């Protein structure tokens, strides 16, 4: 007959076994990845939503790819300039070639949705397209309102620029409760967003100016906040939310380029409420 020590002691002793030192290369990976990552400031919308959680491999891979391409390109150019007779049409030196600014690049390539990649939501009944330098993280849970103090972006389909997820777009939908009008729902929803811990009073969603917006032929409302923007539109009893935010400002308004890109995204959206999944239990309506 075996004699065991106290089971709790056995559990503790067993838990003591295992690695205790985080490898240096992993610390360096964190260092490299965060150096190019901007922090999200408190006045932004949805402070606990963060889509980068599952994208570390992407971030590292993209970062390494950028470095590799840059170094490779530089080496190639260096070789060419060192062998002037090889190429009848010498490649301009990178130091003399005019380099478009980031905003110019965005204007030239990102604002043309015909070059964007398609995305179809498996949960929320819409399809859209996103720019080539963006990534996506589909939702894994249904949208719940009021939003939880969650660290996960699981309730939203997320789109964001690779590496920084700035800007980030989000998309979701929910069936309007019976007897609740679109305007009443939207007003109540925006009130739930007025969290003093997140916003200054000047940035409260419930008091932000609204303007009309058209998404897939349906008219909704567009709210411009403080570095964030959100369009609400109804289709066949489903309320859709399409939002975006950026870290570049925390005061009322959004940068022109950010808004232009967001509005270009809205033009790609096709609503298909019939394909939206129903949550297992009805999500509570806004208070």
């Amino acid at each position, binding site marked *: *007959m*075996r004699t*065991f020590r106290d*089971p*709790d002691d*056995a*559990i*503790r002793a*067993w*838990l*003591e*076994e*295992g*690695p*205790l*030192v*985080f*490898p240096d290369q*992993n*610390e360096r*990976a*964190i*260092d490299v*990845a*965060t*150096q190019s*990552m*901007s*922090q*999200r*400031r*408190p006045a932004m919308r949805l*402070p*606990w939503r*963060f889509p*980068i*959680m*599952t994208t*570390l*491999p992407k*971030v590292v891979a993209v970062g390494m790819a950028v470095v590799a391409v840059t170094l490779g390109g530089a080496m190639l150019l260096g070789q060419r300039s060192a062998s002037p007779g090889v190429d009848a049409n010498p490649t301009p030196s990178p130091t003399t070639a005019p380099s478009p600014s980031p905003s110019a690049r965005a204007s030239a390539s990102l604002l043309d949705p015909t070059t964007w990649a398609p995305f179809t939501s498996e949960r929320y009944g819409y399809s859209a397209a996103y720019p080539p330098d963006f990534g996506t993280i589909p939702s*894994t849970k249904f949208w719940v309102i009021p939003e939880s103090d969650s*660290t*996960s972006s699981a309730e939203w389909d997320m789109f964001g620029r690779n590496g920084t997820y700035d800007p980030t777009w989000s998309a979701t939908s929910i069936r309007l409760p019976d007897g609740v009008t679109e305007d009443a729902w939207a007003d109540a929803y925006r009130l739930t967003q007025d969290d003093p*811990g*997140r916003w200054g009073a000047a940035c409260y969603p419930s008091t932000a100016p609204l303007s009309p917006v058209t998404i897939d032929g349906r008219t909704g409302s567009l709210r411009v906040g403080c570095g964030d923007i959100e369009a609400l539109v109804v289709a066949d009893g489903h309320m859709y939310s399409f939002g975006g935010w950026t870290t570049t400002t925390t005061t009322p308004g959004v940068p022109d380029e950010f808004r232009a890109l967001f509005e270009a995204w809205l033009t790609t959206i096709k609503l298909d409420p019939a394909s939206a999944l129903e949550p297992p239990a009805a999500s509570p309506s806004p208070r």
Partner: protein
Amino acid sequence: MRAGLVERAREGDHDAFTELVAVDSDRCYAIAYRILRDVERAQDAVQQAFMLVWRELPRLRDPARYEVWLHRLLVNACYEESNRHRRWSVHIRALPEDGPGGRDPEIVAVDERDAMERAFRRLSPEHRAVIVLHHHVGLPLGTIGEIVGVPVGTVKSRLHYATHSLRAALAADDAPDLREVRPA
């Protein structure tokens, strides 16, 4: 020291953040490994958690809550890792033959660890997290509740269930061999 680093990192001081990582990463790694039972996934979870820390730190309303907040991000990262890789490896072991004087104490220890490992892997990530935070880190139940986002009663319930499962695994491993019959 940590409070100062948190304040500086909140203001965007990346060097302070790097120091924070150095201060906390070993402990986070130990926790993540014990929840996930996988070195690479634990490393990924810690990296994800610290990237979140950097990104979201300006929104931490009370810097004094940093440690609980960090643990929360870490446990959530472990959950995500676990969900992404539901491939629990199957451990196959050869049963030692008992000698006339009973089983070798070293083999008993190996058996005990093996039984514990298998029992632990059968637990959900939520149960593992509670076990690790309680038995390994030594946190009070209230703090664990804050970290994993459930009431204290749920923490107690999970802890009771998980501990019971592990104890049962040990007890089963101690029982006479009904597990396998080896051919003579």
